[in-house]
């Protein structure tokens, strides 16, 4: 399912809203999650899961082609942990 398909499916259920309004709402929702992660906050959606960020420590990597070692700086990455119910439903059959 793509973003566009998600918007279409929502439109079918929210017939009184314009497609552009639904698009804007989906954008606003995903952006609110992104902004929370940028601010270092955790987004907790009961049953679905939680979005947070994790720190990847600095490490010495290797250029796979030349074998030369390169320093990889520490970084902060987005992380999603699926909730109990989501995990159970996906794993059911």
């Amino acid at each position, binding site marked *: 399912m*793509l973003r566009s398909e998600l918007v279409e499916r929502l439109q079918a259920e929210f017939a009184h809203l314009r497609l552009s309004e639904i698009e804007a709402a989906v954008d606003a929702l995903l952006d609110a999650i992104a902004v929370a992660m940028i*601010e270092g906050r955790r987004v*907790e959606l009961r049953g679905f899961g939680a979005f947070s960020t994790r720190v990847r420590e600095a490490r010495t990597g290797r250029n796979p082609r030349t074998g030369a070692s390169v320093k990889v700086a520490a970084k902060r990455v987005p992380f999603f942990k699926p909730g109990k119910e989501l995990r159970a439903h996906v794993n059911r059959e």
Partner: protein
Amino acid sequence: MPQLKTVTRADLTEAVAEKCHLQRADAGRLVARLFEMIEHSLVRGEPVKLSRFGNFTVRRKKERIGRNPKTGLEVPITPRTVVTFRPSQLLKERVERGKGKAKKTR
């Protein structure tokens, strides 16, 4: 570092209603339905690709041998289907660039 407030469904509903000038009830139902639709897609085994945000995919894991860290006993981990989230390049960059911001009190 002070503990930042966790964002909930209610906060997301509020943000959507405010930004898009929607009735709170509509925004709330829309937020709820969006996550249900993502879940249904994943339950069907179909990945969800949200451009500029990231992709949710389902992966099948084979059985493997695990170990109880307390007792050291070997136990089989049953095959299972799990959800993984791969953030988009854009989201990764935004989070990385915002790193300094996270330390500020807000």
